[in-house]
Each structure stands twice: as C-alpha cells, then as structure tokens.
C-alpha cells in the first residue's frame, strides 16, 4: 500500500509523456508532408541564429516592454524545470526534497529562493500579459483572426501559468519543515501566515495537494502544447535553425521551371522527342502551391511555430491600410489546414483521401494574396524567423502558372514584358531615348 503514490506517479508520468510523444510523432509526420528543401548547409550560421534568436531572444527585445516580460516568463520556464526534476525524483522514489541533501543546504537555499522570486515575477508578468490581451486595446490582439480559439488559447496558457506558479509557492509555504528551516523561502514565507489557523494535518494535506496538482498540471500543460500556439516554446529552436539564410529579397528560382525554360530556349532540343527507353514517366510537377503538401517542410514547420503574436501583421503595409491580407492569418490558416489534412490521414489509415478542400480559396483567398507588396516587413518582424511571404509567393505562382488567374492589369503587365521587354507598352527600340531628352 505504501508504494501506491509512487506507482500512481510513475503511471501519470508515463501517460503524460507517452501521449505527448505520440502527438510529436504526428507533428513530425505532418511536417514531412511538405516538399524537400535543403537547409542542411551553413551549419555554424544556423547554430548562431538559433542561439541568438531562440535561446537569446534577440528579436523579442525589439519591442522592449513585451520583450522584457516575455524573457521573464521564458527564463522562469526553463529554470523552474530544475525544480520539476526534483519533483519527479521525489515522486518516483518517495523522497522529499532530494536535492537538499545532494546539493547541501546553502546552495539549495539559493536555488529554491531564486525559483521563488522567479515564480513571483512570472506571476506578475503573466498578469500584465493578461491585462494587455483582455483589457488594453492593443490592435494586434483584436484582429479578426484572433476571435474564438486563438483568443481563448492565449488566455488559457496565462491561466495555466498563474495556477502553476501559485501552486509552487503554496507548496513551499505549506511545507512546514521547509518553512521552519528558513532556507530559500523569500516569497513563500509571506504566504505561510495565511495557513496559521489550519491544523498541521490540513496544512500537510494542502502541501501534498499543491505538490500533486503542480506536477499533474505540468503534465497536462505539456500535452496542451500540441494543440496550442505555445508549441513555439519547443519549435522556436528548430524553426530558427532551419530558417532561410539568403538575403530576404532573393526568391527561389523554381528548378522545374528552369528545366523547361532551358528546353524552350535551346535551339537543338527536340520538343517532340520521346523519353529515352526505360526512363521513368515523369509526372509534370505542379507549379506553385494550392495546398499544404505543395509547400516545403520548413514552411509547414513555420506554421506550427507561429505564436500568433501578430507582430508581422502589425508591420504589414497592406494590413495597416485596411486590406484583407494578414501574414499572421496566412500562418494560422496553413497550420489549420495542415492539421485538417493530418486528421484526414489518421482517419483513413495513413492515406490522405481527397476532401474537396485546399488551402487556397477554402482558407486563403486570392484577394489576400494579391495585396502583398513583397516588402518583407513580416519576415523582418517575426521573433522566430517565420517567412509568411514565401507562402504568399508560392500561392501566387499557382494562381498564375496553373490557373492563369492573375488580376487583369497584371496580365497586361506580363504581356508587355513578353512582347516589349518592359512592363509598359513601349517599343524596345526606344529604350535609350532618355539620353537625349532634357
């Protein structure tokens, strides 16, 4: 009987991590639905990006106030995990504050004291975040795409954090032995008096409950991540590592197009040539993207990493002037569609069955796509190096090359380039006239 809590703890742990692992496998399968793109080069630069941007939060602090609060929560999250490690060991082996003996009183006091202060700071930061989201009128939290789940998701996490931090402090405050030792309780000592009138038994009950709910809460939190924009706390790392390193203005040259253009321009090529005997029948590739599987895996990873912070949208010239386009929505739509495709695959024993839907039109409208000026403000702003522009461009490519569905004026511009070598209708022979005009 006395091992019951330990067994229960081990079970909860296994269940929590097991379920999470299962979801992570699904996540990685979904990301691999994307096309291949080579992001294995330039390792030192990639590592540096990850260290600076994900670990060092260098892009977060461009907005100093929210950046600073975010760093508190982030540091709190990472460091308090050491405390979670202690809880796990205690839970599995029935010990109590096992690190106290291992690390010695002095260092342990320092550590736990530090955690308590962090927990209090995180609590305050989270309350401010909540107020910003729900009380102050910050435009990027009020956009259309932030209604419903995205809004409650943002708040849920904040409630989670508030409860977890409170539980941690209550757990310390009701640990009578810990309080009496007077080590490492700079915050919880002020909470302790609240329980003065309680019997020692109920105080112990509260301590145990806080301990249990804290760790179970963490397991639930872990599993909540998969369904939430808070996946970014994990994916920010690979996402910054695999981010595009080329100049932002450099758009990729579609290889499939290069091959065809070369053929067209090569006077020796025989367009009617039969494929060589035994050569594989090549399925002509689709140009551009109309659904998630046409995007490459980094774009899909981007979609899962998006924190829905809206920094991109708040810098987007199209959005600022009231157009439909919101780069944040592009990312959220991509993720929603990818999740839908993933569920479809799960439901159909591992194969995707056409559901008559796609990312284009069902999620993202051509009107949104055509409003983009390709200015890269969204890419510049994103604190985790997401590239919404690349998705917009790939979808435009589909509209133009597969569907010939560009706005009429753009068709005219393109015809002009084809015929006159300039987007306007001028004669190429007049190209140098400017030198003699004054």
């Amino acid at each position: 009987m006395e091992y019951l809590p330990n067994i229960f703890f081990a079970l909860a742990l296994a269940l929590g991590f097991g379920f999470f692992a299962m979801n992570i496998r699904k996540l990685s399968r979904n990301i691999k639905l994307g096309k291949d793109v080579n992001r294995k080069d330039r390792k030192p630069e990639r590592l540096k990006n990850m260290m600076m941007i994900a670990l060092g939060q260098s892009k977060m602090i461009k907005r100093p106030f929210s950046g600073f609060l975010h760093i508190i929560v982030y540091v709190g999250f990472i460091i308090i995990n050491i405390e979670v490690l202690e809880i796990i060991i205690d839970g599995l082996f029935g010990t109590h504050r096992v690190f106290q003996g291992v690390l010695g009183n002095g260092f342990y006091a320092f550590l736990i004291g530090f955690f308590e202060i962090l927990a209090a700071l995180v609590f305050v930061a989270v309350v401010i975040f909540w107020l910003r989201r729900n009380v102050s009128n910050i435009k990027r939290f009020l956009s259309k795409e932030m209604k419903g789940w995205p809004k409650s998701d943002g708040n849920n996490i904040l409630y989670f954090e508030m409860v977890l931090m409170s539980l941690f402090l209550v757990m310390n405050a009701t640990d009578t032995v810990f309080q009496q030792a007077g080590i490492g309780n700079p915050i919880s000592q002020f909470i302790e008096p609240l329980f003065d009138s309680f019997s020692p038994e109920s105080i112990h009950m509260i301590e145990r409950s806080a301990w249990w709910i804290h760790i179970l809460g963490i397991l639930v939190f872990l599993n909540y991540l998969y369904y939430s924009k808070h996946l970014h706390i994990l994916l920010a790392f690979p996402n910054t590592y695999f981010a595009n390193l080329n100049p932002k203005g450099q758009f990729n040259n579609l290889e499939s197009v290069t091959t065809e253009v070369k053929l067209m321009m090569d006077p020796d090529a025989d367009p009617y040539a039969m494929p060589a005997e035994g050569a594989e029948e090549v399925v002509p590739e689709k140009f551009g993207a109309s659904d998630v599987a046409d995007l490459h895996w980094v774009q899909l990873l981007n979609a899962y990493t998006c924190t829905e912070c809206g920094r991109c949208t708040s810098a987007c010239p199209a959005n600022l002037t009231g157009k439909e386009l919101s780069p944040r929505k592009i990312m959220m739509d991509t993720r929603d569609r990818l999740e839908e495709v993933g569920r479809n695959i799960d439901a159909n024993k591992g194969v995707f069955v056409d559901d008559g839907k796609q990312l284009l039109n069902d999620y993202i409208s051509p009107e949104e796509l055509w409003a983009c000026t390709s200015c890269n403000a969204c890419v510049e702003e994103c604190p985790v190096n997401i590239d919404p522009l690349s998705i917009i461009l790939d979808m435009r490519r589909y509209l133009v090359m597969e569907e010939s569905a560009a706005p009429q004026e753009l068709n005219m511009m393109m015809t002009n380039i084809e015929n006159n070598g300039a987007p306007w209708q001028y004669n190429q022979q007049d190209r140098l006239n400017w030198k003699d005009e004054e």
Partner: protein
Amino acid sequence: MIVPTMAEMMAQGKQPEVLFWVGAAGSYDDRAKKISRAFVKILHQANVDFAVLGTEESSTGDAAKRAGNEFLFQMQAMMNIEVLNGYEVKKIVTCDPHSFNTLKNEYPELGGKYEVFHHTQFIQNLISEGRLKIDDTTLKGKRVTFHDPCYLGRANDVYESPRELIKRLGVNLTEMKRNKSTALCCGAGGAQMFKDAEKGDKEVNVLRTEDALETKPQIIATGCPYCNTMMTDGIKFKEKEAEVEVKDIAELIAEANNL
C-alpha cells in the same frame, strides 16, 4: 548627353569599367528618366568609363517573378544573362533596387554572376576612392528625410550608403518613425505598381507619405524610381507639392554639384 552602349564599346574593342543597368522605369518613365540622366552626369563628372545595353536591355523579370510568373521571369533572366555574358560584363550598377536585387541575388543561380551595386553604393565608392566630391554648400541646412526602399533595405541590408551620401550634402537628415529595417513599403513592390490596390481604407503610399510629413521635410529623398513615383503621388494627394520635393539621391548630388 553621351551614353555609350556596350555594342559601340565592343566595336571599338573596349571593355568599360561598369555596366549601367538602366531598368524599365529609368528608360521609359518620365520622372525616372531624370534620375538616369542625373546619375549619368555623376558618372561623367567622376570620369567613370561606363556603358549601357541600350536597346539590348530587357526587363529583368522582377515584376513578373513577384507576380508569380516564374516562367516569364526565367525567360527574361536567361535572355539577359546571354547578352550580359556575351559582353563579358563583370560589374553592374543600377538606380533601381528591384533590378539590383534580381541581378545580384536571383541571376547567379541561372548562370549570371556579376558584382552588382546600387547607385548609392557605387557613388559612395567613387567618393572613397577620391574620384568624386560632393559640394556640401548648395543644399546646406535643408531638412531631408530618407525613405528606405524595401528591396534595398530589408531585402539586402543596405541602409547606410544612402544615408552617408545624404549627410555629405550638408543637409539636415531626419528619420521617420519607421525607418531602416522597420521602414514602411511605398506600396509599389511585389508588382503592385502595375495594378490597383485591393480594397482597404487607405493607399499604402499615402500612409508612407504621412510618415514622411511628420518629419516636416523640405525634401523626401528616395533611392528607387518606384518609391519616387509613389511618394510624389502621395505628396500630390496631400497637396503639399509647394512645400515638399521628392528627389532621388542621384538627383540631389547632381544638383549639389551643379551638374
């Protein structure tokens, strides 16, 4: 105005130091043609041995690519590369950040590898090599604000050369609230120049002009023919033509040096 072409140079068995890529706007747009001429005056003053492609130049394909027409882009690119490589061009300078970006970043993979400069970078080099001086008295004390072109700034991280040149004019450079990497687009990029904007509650160029007007400028300096058009339209929309001029940095330098 003397503007030699590559064909003429070749006939004389000469290879110029640099090719001036004029671009479609610089060749045909009345406003942008003035920028091309101002830049040529500067090249002459610094005794730069240059040439243009003239009628052999064609659209880089930038607008087609950004509109999504990769086919048309690559056909343009391959044609241009054939011409450029035929003349054994090594160094290119252009006043158009879109051509700059495309030639510099997108052509190499298709076989066109050149050293490409934006005219502000090129002029800055001329100054540091002692080949050109800017007279800092003509425009002295004018209030100038600079609008960063997306395809020069964010797209290629060139923020300083235009500013260095403006400072050399002896003017008073003031920054807009959104500047450098956070600059707002003028609204022309991504092929928007060639179509009406989607419906919204404002035009992008008007919003950007408001950014500029907040600095109470006498001159809005630009480094891109499309930005120039957009800002000029914005100023007209705000009925400020009497107080504010929109000028390319090349034009300002030509003016300062009385060219």
